[in-house]
């Protein structure tokens, strides 16, 4: 790795995006100042582009009231699923209504945390809101109880991962946001 590459590597995807956005916005402002219009030529085609002067920030408020127990479980380091008392169907992610028998009579079952990796990928190009993380691995594992779980896998070298390998679910804190979530840890056999 050359010295220049090393310097580049220090910049996260987020920093790179922010830098490009900042430069572009400055360019738009200068054009607007001189012409009185937020219209700039497209970098490649030269076609006139109106740069939106309004901005929309989205952040949703999602009810977790009925599955509050699941999150309380994370505080205790436990992973819960729901089970329909009538038909026995196990639900993960947990849900409080059983559409099969139209009953909402569930019990909370603590899961074993032991599973087997079904598949995985490493996210290199990240969504904007994940761009402050290093590349991360997402996997799906089948737990002993027969339900599947999607989570980050604590290994980013694809050579050290394989379909069928044993994994353990670990409750952990997601930083830098600092909230509780769960991850899959590969077990070396």
């Amino acid at each position, binding site marked *: 790795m050359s010295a220049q590459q090393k310097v580049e590597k220090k910049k996260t995807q987020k920093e790179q*995006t922010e830098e490009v956005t900042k430069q572009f916005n400055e360019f738009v402002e200068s054009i607007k100042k001189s012409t009185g219009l937020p219209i700039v030529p497209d970098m490649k085609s030269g076609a006139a582009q109106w740069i939106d002067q309004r901005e929309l920030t989205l952040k949703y408020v999602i009810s977790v009231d009925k599955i509050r127990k699941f999150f309380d479980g994370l505080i205790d380091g436990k992973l819960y699923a729901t089970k329909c008392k009538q038909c026995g169907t196990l639900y993960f992610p947990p849900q409080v209504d059983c559409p099969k028998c139209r009953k909402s009579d569930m019990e909370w079952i603590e899961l074993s945390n032991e599973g087997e990796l079904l*598949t995985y990928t490493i996210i290199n*190009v990240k*969504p904007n809101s994940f761009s402050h993380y290093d590349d*991360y691995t*997402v996997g799906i594992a089948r737990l002993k109880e027969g339900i599947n779980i*999607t989570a980050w896998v604590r290994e980013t070298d694809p050579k050290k991962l394989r*379909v069928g390998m044993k994994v353990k679910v670990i409750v952990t804190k*997601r930083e830098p946001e600092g909230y509780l979530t769960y991850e899959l840890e590969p077990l070396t056999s």
Partner: protein
Amino acid sequence: MGRNVAIIGVGHSKFGIRTDVNVAELAWESTKQAMENAGVDQKDIDYYVTSNVGAWSSEPLPAVVVGEYSDLVPKGTVRVEAACASGSAALKLGHDMIASGEANIALVVGVEKMNESPTPTVVEFIGRAGNYFWEFENFGLTFPGYYALYATAYMSKYGATEEDLCQVAVKNHYYGARNPKAQFQKEITVEECMRSRYIAWPLKLLDCSPITDGSAAIILASEEIAKKVTDTPVWIKAIGYANDTANLSRRDNFLSLRAAVEAAKMAYKKAGIDETDLVKNFDVAEVHDCFTIAELLAYEDLGFVKKGEAVKLIREKQTYIGGIIPVNLSGGLKAKGHPIAATGVSMAVELTKQLRQEVERERQAPIKKGMAIAHNVGGTGHYAYVTIFSLDKPRR
């Protein structure tokens, strides 16, 4: 169901980064062509369906804006969303309007202008299209990521390699290079594909369809009208559809898209197609190759080959012209581009032109059976539509 429905006109914009037009202007490009191709104008159209996913583009009610610009007031319309299968869902609605007798002529226009937002925002929007809370909020999956989960499982089970996946891209760029409407008109090699950077391991940049602006339109008509206005109506023989869970973890396996399998089964049953030696029925297919792995899954999910044998098809070049079934002669989503809600309509346009033998000579399939098939998947296999087109009028 009800009356026979035919495609009597098609239109297709240039796909790519279309900084020269806004959403309404882009929709008009293909709408105008389709009306001229059918020899109808706005007064003849009873209803129009607008396929658009949006969010990355500025108009929240695109159907209305398209209608205003294209002089389609007060025909009646709706915006259809079935993720990347929106175009086929829109075709289904247009079809049903005519089959039911509600309309005699309908326009279906698919339009998407994804480049109105910067790429990281588009990656974010599409990533959110799984199960938002359990997949995105906590684990930041991306669209290439979802399909990569399928690729890893498939490669592990059947021994397919990254090079095999790249062969799909090579084929689709080969035909894209011969399609003037395609976003990428350049051939690529397996080596170039293998050298491209990882987007979501094991998928690389050249395994992925691009972010695209584009529109496509078709005019549908009842049998009575179709007979009057054209000598080569292309009939909608059957439409199969199905859906699957939002959350990937609630699927049984990652070796097949269940929705596509079910949709294909329904379409074959409706069309009365014998499922033994299926490929013999079709001259050409357009399949949903948003990622190279998706095309391999399509070969199997449509029943062209048995499970695990898709790799053999691509290795032996059996899905090129001259093979057992030519696939994605338009360049597919991979090279033609993937303006999400225009894609399904674009497949219908391509197959109509293939059946009428109107495409560029180098990518024209020999038409012997007069039947073609489109496989259009929405989301991560959330929605699937399989549509069978035919030069022979379906028997009722």
